[in-house]
């Protein structure tokens, strides 16, 4: 037998022949064949990859194409197992084996019995069991263990692998075998390694909890059956579940053990024997585990009352839990203890006070009820302890402090909040010196700044500063310009090439082009081609940047008219006049995109002074500027220029004079865009479960049509429909400062995506961060679309987005921009859909109310304006909003409107919501 024979055998794919070939060979002889076996194995792997891997395909051209590689690969692996060293064997992919070929592998090992088989099994478990096809690998290891070829591996994967691996492959349509039977067949495993399932947490899709929830494999039922049959020790199962719960596994995986423990239905005697363990588990950091242990303690305490010295310290972690149900249950047990043991009353009161840290009026009420019933108001210990919790007491319960502590101590909370209450003030001037843009100072700064913006293009003001600097300093070229700019040039090329024409990172690419225009003095022919093309305002931005690049290439250092002088994209009107004069002196004309943008960025402040300085300017742009600044001018023929001038003067109203000359340009042409919207709760049934979604429809009048104005007619362009996608965050930030006076169109465009964020998490979040952040801008007007965007973002599933919305609301209240009636009516209409996740508003609003008394009042008024209209379709969790309102009414004394009273009076539900509605009607 020689290599030719082996080659022939391997090519025929005969497993029996491979086994026979190596039978009786020594390790040394086998290792001689290893390189040959590996070469063959690698060739087959190369064939397998050639179908989808271009590199492999090319490589294969130099070697041999094997048509039936798939059927030959398991035999090649078998030859590898028969010849390889331990190190080399780890490179084999055993998942090529079908269950029928398992026997061949076992036979090879049985005949070979290499000295490193133990090590192999450990490494094999580590590498193969968590992979796809790990079930077969587990069965192989089990077979080797059963054959006594290896001891049971110690690796965790050997234990966890059973969760999937114990199930044999079954033919489609045939019923799966019963887990109890499978476990009975693995008795040695069941008696030993099975118990480690209670010690090893698992991961991802490998855990008892996962198997049960997603795998449809009920391990709990099988284990219960085996426990009942006496195969598994019931006592050991009870202990093992409790031991698992003391290990701080993550909540999802810990849940299986607590559920299974309860499914075992422990008797009181069994629970009693494990009392100390339950007490220990009360200290768990997993809230449901604490609730589980508390339930056990409650049962024990009922049946066989526990002593105060055991119970009070044991309940401390439960009283400090985040869950109000857990705290309430603990208080119940404490109260029972005080009832049967009067000597423990003071200790019970002291312990129960921890419940005040639960920020829920009902729980706190329960604590005060307990204190009033059991405590001695003269007790120094109680008073001292209570004073340390004063800050935690919710407004509606503060009056109850008076019985226990002096009035001054009770008032601390109010005073502290009042001390730091924020005075509501109007927003700072758009052209306040503190908001002025600092121009780039010289070549060195420009070089550094350009490199920095190329890496981080997210801030649109930096992009604007860069463009302004590149234009102004385009002629400033030191002697070693090429050398100094070489690294930046290389990097810009890299960015430009890596982004390709894709619109995934269009801004990165466009900044790269600008920088290359400066360094190389040229712009590649296809530099501005993006595929697919950008639309609307994004296309305007692209065109504008292309024009700036042309100006850089021509080294024309005349100022960019449209470069913002202040944060937010605003231009000081006087600065624009000065720039225009510079262009006139040079007897040149800026491009139309620059002119349009400059007009739309004009700050409302200082226009009258600027108008005085404009007198010497001539031409159509000068006339348009005059109009924008508030002067009189006759609307000229250039529709984009004059639209910009009119919209600069009147961002959101109708423009009859303009419309008469340039009619029907589209929304926000001569006719202002008017938005309308409707929301409803959509209901869908899938696999027996009903799913609800919020659906929002919007419409704009006049409608945007393909025939609407294009080119540089920027206000109309904002209505060109587009969808969020790819990495639009920096692009959206860039267009956000194109027309700072009116963002309604952008908010309207994003409403669909924002609605999705209420329904699901992770929906174009980065793009929406940019949008919602804009609501917090001191000069962003909260018009209807902005209000709707804010209301949706406040209910977003994702924490970050909700946080941005809360920040925006805080800023709007602080700066006096919030129109509570407008926002409240939007929220009220949304609430009428009955869509429950909208009650997430309560979380954000609670945070906003904490900022100051002024904010608390504003939120109270906002809620009063929200709780109006038809309550018949209110979400089931509307009580959370009522609860917040009740606290705010208690804290600030805001009064309910008649329409809110009507809304509350029409709430017919009982329970907590009904009670709160009644309390509000009585107290508010």
């Amino acid at each position, binding site marked *: 037998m020689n290599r030719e024979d082996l080659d022939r055998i391997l090519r025929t794919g005969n497993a029996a022949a491979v086994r026979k070939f190596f039978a009786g060979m020594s390790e040394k002889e086998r290792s001689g064949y290893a390189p040959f076996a590996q070469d063959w194995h690698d060739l087959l792997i190369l064939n397998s990859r050639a179908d989808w891997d271009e590199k492999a395909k090319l490589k294969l051209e130099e070697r041999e194409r094997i048509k039936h590689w798939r059927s030959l690969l398991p035999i090649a692996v078998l030859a590898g197992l028969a010849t390889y060293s331990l190190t080399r064997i780890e490179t084999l992919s055993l998942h090529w084996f079908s269950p029928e070929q398992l026997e061949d592998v076992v036979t090879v090992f049985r005949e070979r019995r290499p000295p490193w088989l133990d090590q192999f099994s450990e490494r094999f478990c580590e590498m193969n069991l*968590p992979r796809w096809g790990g079930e077969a690998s587990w069965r192989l290891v089990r077979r080797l263990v059963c054959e006594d070829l290896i001891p049971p591996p110690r690796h965790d994967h050997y234990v966890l692998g059973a969760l999937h691996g114990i199930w044999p492959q079954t033919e489609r349509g045939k019923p799966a075998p019963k887990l109890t039977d499978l476990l009975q067949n693995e008795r040695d495993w069941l008696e030993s390694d099975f118990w480690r399932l209670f010690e090893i947490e698992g991961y991802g899709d490998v855990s008892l909890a996962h198997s049960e929830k997603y795998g449809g494999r009920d391990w709990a039922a099988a284990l219960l059956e085996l426990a009942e049959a006496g195969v598994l020790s019931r006592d050991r199962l009870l202990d093992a579940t409790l031991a698992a719960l003391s290990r701080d596994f993550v909540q999802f995986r810990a849940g299986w053990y607590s559920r299974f423990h309860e499914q075992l239905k422990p008797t009181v005697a069994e629970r009693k024997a494990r009392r100390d363990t339950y007490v220990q*588990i009360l200290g768990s950091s997993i809230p449901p585990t604490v609730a589980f242990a508390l339930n056990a303690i409650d049962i024990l305490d009922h049946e066989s009352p526990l002593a105060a010295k055991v119970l009070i310290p044991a309940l401390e972690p439960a009283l400090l839990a985040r869950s109000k149900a857990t705290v309430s249950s603990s208080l119940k047990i404490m109260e029972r203890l005080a009832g049967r043991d009067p000597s423990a009353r003071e200790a019970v009161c002291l312990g129960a006070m921890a419940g005040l840290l639960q*920020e829920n009026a009902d729980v706190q009420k329960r604590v005060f009820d307990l204190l009033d019933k059991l405590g001695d108001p003269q007790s120094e210990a109680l008073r001292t302890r209570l004073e340390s919790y004063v800050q935690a007491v919710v407004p509606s319960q503060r009056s109850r402090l008076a019985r226990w502590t002096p009035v001054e101590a009770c008032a601390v909370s109010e005073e502290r909040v009042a001390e730091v209450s924020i005075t509501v003030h109007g927003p700072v001037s758009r052209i306040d010196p503190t908001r002025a843009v600092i121009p780039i100072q010289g070549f*060195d700064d420009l070089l*550094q700044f350009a490199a*920095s913006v190329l890496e981080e293009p997210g801030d649109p003001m930096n992009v604007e500063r860069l463009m302004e600097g590149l234009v102004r300093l385009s002629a400033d070229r030191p002697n070693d310009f090429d050398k100094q700019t*070489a690294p930046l040039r290389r990097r810009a090329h890299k960015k430009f090439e890596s982004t390709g024409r894709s619109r995934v990172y269009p801004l990165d690419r466009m900044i790269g082009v600008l920088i290359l225009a400066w360094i190389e003095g040229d712009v590649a022919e296809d530099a501005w081609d993006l595929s697919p093309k950008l639309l609307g305002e994004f296309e305007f931005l692209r065109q504008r940047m292309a024009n700036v690049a042309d100006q850089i290439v021509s080294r024309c250092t005349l100022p960019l008219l449209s470069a913002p002088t202040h944060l937010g994209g605003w231009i000081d009107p006087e600065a624009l006049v000065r720039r225009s004069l510079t262009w006139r002196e040079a007897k040149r004309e800026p491009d139309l995109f620059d002119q349009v943008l400059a007009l739309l960025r004009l700050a409302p402040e200082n226009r009258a002074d600027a108008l005085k300085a404009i007198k010497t300017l001539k031409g159509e742009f000068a006339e348009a500027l005059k109009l924008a600044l508030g002067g009189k001018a006759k609307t000229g023929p250039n529709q984009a220029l004059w639209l910009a001038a009119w919209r600069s003067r009147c961002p959101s109203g109708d423009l009859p004079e303009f419309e008469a000359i340039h009619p029907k340009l589209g929304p926000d042409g001569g006719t202002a865009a008017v938005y309308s919207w409707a929301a409803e709760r959509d209901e869908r049934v899938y696999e027996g479960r009903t799913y609800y979604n919020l659906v929002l429809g919007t419409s704009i009048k006049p409608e945007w049509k393909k025939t609407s104005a294009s080119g540089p007619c920027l206000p109309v362009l904002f209505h060109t429909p587009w969808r969020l996608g790819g990495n639009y965050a920096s692009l959206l930030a860039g267009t956000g400062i194109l027309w700072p006076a009116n963002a309604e169109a952008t908010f309207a465009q994003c409403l669909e995506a924002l609605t999705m964020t209420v329904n699901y998490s992770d929906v174009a*979040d980065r793009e929406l961060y940019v949008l919602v952040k804009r609501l917090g801008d001191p000069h962003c007007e909260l018009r209807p679309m902005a209000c709707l965007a804010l209301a949706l973002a406040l209910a977003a599933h994702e924490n970050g987005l909700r*946080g941005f919305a809360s920040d925006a609301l805080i800023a709007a209240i602080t700066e006096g921009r919030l129109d509570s009636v407008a926002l409240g009516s939007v929220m009220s209409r949304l609430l009428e859909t009955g869509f429950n996740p909208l009650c997430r508003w309560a979380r954000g609003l609670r945070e906003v109310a904490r900022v100051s008394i002024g904010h608390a009042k504003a939120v109270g008024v906002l809620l009063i304006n929200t709780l109006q209209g038809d309550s018949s379709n209110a979400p089931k969790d509307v009580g959370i909003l009522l609860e917040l309102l009740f606290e705010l009414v208690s804290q600030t004394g805001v009064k309910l409107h008649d329409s809110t009273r009507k809304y509350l009076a029409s709430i017919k539900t009982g329970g907590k919501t009904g009670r709160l509605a009644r309390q509000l009607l009585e107290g508010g």
Partner: protein
Amino acid sequence: MTTAVPHSYAYAFSSSLEVEPARCRLRLATSGGVEKFPYFFQGALVKPRLTALLLRALSKVVASRFHMPAMMLRRILAERDPVVTSGGGMLRFEGFSACCSAYARVDLTPDAYQGVVEGQGTTNVDFNHEMRAALAQIRDHETVGLAIGADEVTLLRGSDQIIERKVKLPVRWIKGFVEVQAYQARMLQRLRVGMVEALRFLRSLPKSAAGKATNWVTPSAGALRLTQRESPEGIRVGGVERLRVLEELVPHCQGLSVFADPAGEASEWVLHFGPLNFHLTITGDVWRGFSGEGQVLFDLASFAANRSEAFDLIRGMLKWQAELRGDEFSANWGLEASAIRQALSVLGSRGLIGYDLTRGAYYHRELPFDLSMVEDLHPRLKAARQLVGEGRVLILRSDFASAEAEVQGTGVAHRVRLSEDGDRCTCPWFAKHKDARGPCKHILAAQLTLNPDDSTDL
């Protein structure tokens, strides 16, 4: 490049909580450092339940990863144990999360225990599953003894078997230990709130990872508030979910202090419990570990050239002084503050000192790891040395206040400017990070050329 260093934990016994009818005893096993099985302490805890809670929280941080692919975690999370340092009457337990973005330390002052400090130094301490679970049993009314290590007699008499665990310690994990003190020493206290406000804030944090937004924590109505808006008084905190480990501890604390470095790259959250403190130090972003921060590179690069008497003096004093304060050195020994700072940085980078923000002092702590095996502890410095060695640095101009150099990179020459106003480089790394994550290799190379350094043993 080395990514992990083989390390062997060898414990004379397994740490455990021994429960007896009237009392219990927390017996912590030690491994490595000044001796094979150091013996540091024997006594009783003044606040047993609280100490147990803090040690559990520490072990939770050590066992956590806040950012890292799960598969990778399983391979590197080979039960790294915390270290304990005994010195100046203080017992300090410290450790890092697996992702190296969070560092936790429990400080026991002499008022936190009754007993005898038998030895000084730093050693690994066994925090096994069973012991950690048992910590939940400890209550305040019980008498709880604490032993860190065991005396020779006990060891000889005991029937315990030596427990040996061979692991691969990730280099980034070890590097975290030497980098974190550089941040801490620069931090200033920014916020302080009471227990109720601290709890309210921590309970307001999102339960899951807080999305992709960067957060700031700002003071608001005498409390703390999480916001996405940057503000001068705010502290930048990415990955706020890391703070949730504090939630369980807060109801027992007297207050929370928040420290932050001026650049907002890291923050430390200290819970005060009277004689005990719990420190949680986190990086500005959850995906950044302390290991890659490069805060000490400048000092290391110029160390050999400027090796001063301050270094030798402080190095010598570490042998008998448990705590060091830079300003005291300056006053007592007439040494320049910059020389002291540099010496302390270098000592920190060698794992010889840690920093205690609440005491405003460095403390002696010799890490029980073989740092000499980590040849890539500072890869940027290594790369800079290589650039110098290959003659790729050309000094164009140099005077007292500034210098300019050209450093040949791969296919392109970078321009480096060193000045008192701040250094600059034209490489993309600098464009992205500026000096927030330490200097780039080109700046370091220019600096090494200007201040030749023949030391390679860092």
